[in-house]
């Protein structure tokens, strides 16, 4: 047993209102530089819908993730080492900018510089890539709130097999939001696909980062990641990805998306897992068994044997305490209500989701029944096959029973708490019906509904031995240098050496490239 710690996230989808605050604050923090216009480390998708980039879940097309070979061993779906090297010159599976969208801005100066005139001046959109005027026809969330989904419904890969059953009429459809960040997988295909070995998993907290000085722009990781959460910065020629806000995490603070989430639906915490068992768990034959296999990887932080192995592995004491208090552990292992997104990609993703009960509740309420009654809700979960099957396609590789089990629990919690809220005697039977008792039901409710900041985010700060490193790391955070929209010369994910640096490749040919010549210090201005 090789115990490792993993910083992970759970999102409670019932509470997501699709406001995109998380996407916007993330973008402001990390990707508001040129070259990253189309890059959304965090994006929010309306489901059913195509997602971002369009149809990314269709792995027969994109060939991201792992698959089982004939010998039962894991292999990269897009081909192994030799085939990757032979295809370096042109990656056959790379999404093009059309699969995302062509980034644009508006000609605002036409508004500012317009002379007095009869017509109201306009600010037509122009492409940020070519500078030409463009007709905007797609973007990162074009099909928000099912807008456009009617026209594109057949393109949601997750509707395969149930497309004829889903009605795309406003009053008969269902809908929910799916916020997505990088999964910080235990078995990441992005790292496995990188020919230069520039993508690595931090051994302390499992955060997956791109070494910007090591990346050589082979763009194999972009197609390798089945979640399409590696993006290609087209100005620097380097891959960039969600950093799990590691400079914040190291200070014990939540990620920007979590901190700013309006629905307060994100949970952050550590889990301990057995790194030696990852490959075996990712190689179980049956896709629908992957959820259980991954759940079994996560170790009980109270088990003395685990504790022993953890301290032998050098995991500090406060981190073990944090793992014991982790809301993630509770949601995944104790209450078993969180599920991984697309376990069938076999990357062992570590951002999990509590599937939404709301599609079911909405239907029940619309038909005039009591949407807080356990029996009615249970029956509705059984009859409303389509939302449930759809959720199963997302979270359990199609295993409907697991999703039903979770939804039963959520429904039971709803009914159980209604009695308490109304001042009636709580009915233990409701809790028992889903294999829980009243006390744990109330605890789960507390965690899901009213948990405070420090219960939702249990983040042990980086330990003191490396404190001086962390300071340096934070100081290198790109946020500080974006004011003039200059290209980053700092390395995201890897602190850069203190000595002077330049970036010749992105030099536009005008003036002197930054840092090429020794800088003049403020104390001794030029000519002195």
């Amino acid at each position: 047993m090789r115990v490792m710690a993993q910083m992970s996230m759970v999102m409670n989808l019932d509470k997501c209102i699709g406001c995109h605050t998380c996407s916007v604050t993330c973008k402001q923090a990390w990707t508001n530089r040129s070259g990253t216009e189309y890059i959304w480390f965090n994006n929010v998708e309306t489901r059913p819908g195509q997602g971002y980039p369009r149809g990314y879940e269709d792995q027969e097309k994109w060939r991201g993730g792992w698959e089982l070979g004939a010998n039962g061993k894991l292999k990269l779906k897009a081909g192994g080492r030799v085939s990757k090297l032979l295809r370096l010159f042109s990656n056959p599976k790379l999404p093009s900018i059309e699969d995302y969208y062509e980034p644009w801005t508006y000609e605002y100066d036409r508004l500012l510089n317009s002379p007095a005139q009869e017509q109201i001046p306009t600010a037509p959109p122009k492409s940020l890539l070519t500078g030409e005027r463009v007709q905007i026809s797609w973007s990162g969330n074009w099909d928000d709130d099912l807008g456009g989904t009617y026209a594109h419904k057949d393109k949601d890969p997750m509707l395969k097999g149930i497309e004829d059953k889903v009605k795309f009429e406003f009053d008969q459809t269902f809908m929910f939001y799916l916020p997505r960040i990088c999964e910080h997988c235990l078995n990441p295909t992005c790292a496995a696909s990188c020919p230069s070995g520039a993508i690595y998993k931090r051994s302390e907290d499992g955060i997956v980062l791109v070494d910007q000085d090591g990346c050589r722009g082979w763009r194999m990781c972009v197609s390798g990641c089945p979640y399409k959460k590696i993006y290609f910065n087209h100005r620097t020629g380097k891959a960039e990805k969600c950093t799990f806000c590691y400079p914040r995490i190291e200070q014990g603070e939540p990620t920007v998306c979590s901190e700013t989430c309006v629905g307060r639906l994100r949970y952050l915490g550590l889990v301990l897992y057995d790194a030696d068992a990852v490959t075996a768990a990712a190689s179980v034959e049956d896709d629908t068994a992957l959820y259980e296999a991954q759940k079994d990887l996560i170790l009980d932080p109270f088990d003395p044997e685990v504790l022993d192995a953890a301290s032998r592995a050098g995991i500090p004491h406060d981190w073990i305490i944090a793992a014991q208090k982790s809301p993630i552990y509770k949601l995944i292992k104790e209450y078993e209500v969180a599920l991984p997104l697309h376990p069938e990609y076999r990357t062992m993703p570590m951002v999990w989701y509590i599937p939404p009960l709301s599609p079911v509740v909405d239907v029940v309420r619309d038909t005039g029944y009591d949407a807080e009654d356990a029996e009615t809700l249970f029956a509705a979960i059984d009859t409303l096959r389509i939302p449930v099957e759809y959720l199963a396609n997302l979270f359990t590789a199609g295993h409907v029973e697991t999703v039903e089990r979770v939804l039963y629990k959520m429904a039971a919690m709803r009914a159980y708490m209604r009695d308490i809220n109304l001042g009636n005697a709580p009915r233990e039977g409701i809790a028992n019906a889903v294999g829980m008792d009243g006390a744990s039901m109330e605890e789960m409710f507390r965690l899901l509904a009213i948990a405070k900041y420090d219960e939702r985010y249990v983040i042990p700060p980086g330990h003191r031995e490396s404190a001086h490193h962390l300071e340096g790391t934070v100081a290198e955070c790109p946020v500080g240098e974006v004011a003039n929209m200059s290209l980053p010369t700092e390395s995201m994910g890897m602190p850069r050496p203190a000595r002077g640096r330049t970036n010749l490749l992105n030099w536009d040919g005008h003036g002197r490239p930054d840092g090429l010549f020794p800088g003049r210090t403020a104390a001794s201005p030029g000519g002195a």
Partner: protein
Amino acid sequence: MNNATTLEILVWVVLPYVVLTIFVLGHLWRFRYDRFGWTTRSSQIYESKLLSIGSPLFHYGIIGIFFGHVVGLGIPKSWTEAIGLREEWYHLMAVTIGLAAAAACVGGLLILIYRRRTNSRVFGATTPGDKLMYLVLAATIGFGVLATIAHSALGHYDYREGVSVWFRDFWTFQPNPALMSEAPIFFQLHILSALALFAIWPFTRLVHVFATPLGYLTRPYIVYRSKDEKTSAPRRGWEKIDY
């Protein structure tokens, strides 16, 4: 060497060594100060269709040509004769394989340049450095093809007794400038443009050639790194970062 003019010495002896120095020191400098800029700067996200034909054609062509040069320049005539390879056979082999690689390379290069010029996204991302690089690269390849066709295939110049000998002597620090000044014009132009290419090489995207990730074949798929120096085992080839 006694009757070589100063100009000949400058062009065929001094200049090549200067370029070699620039090439080596330039790469060292780039690696030290601009590792962040050491990338292919792929433009595939802008345009994929033409690239998927042009880039592999060009690259497989130029890699073939590279190995052709290794054989043609590096292996003395006496060696191939010693293993009984007849001159006509060698010539036939060199010309056919060489021309096939050259055709792929030139065809690919034309597609790539056409793509760069006509696709407005790709053109928008083209820097002055790219343009200079393409100019010199195309000149080098073009003169090389011309020299082979005009002087080797159709003419009677045996580069293995001229240019090749000069090239090998260059590495043993006794180049004979006369061998080059007597070479036909297209060979001279080929060498001169190649010198220009090597001189600008470290400062262009061509540095990506020295990033060819052969280590991928042997390294484990998943890479772990520690942010703490104390717990990360030192690894060959991975520089320790001071932070």
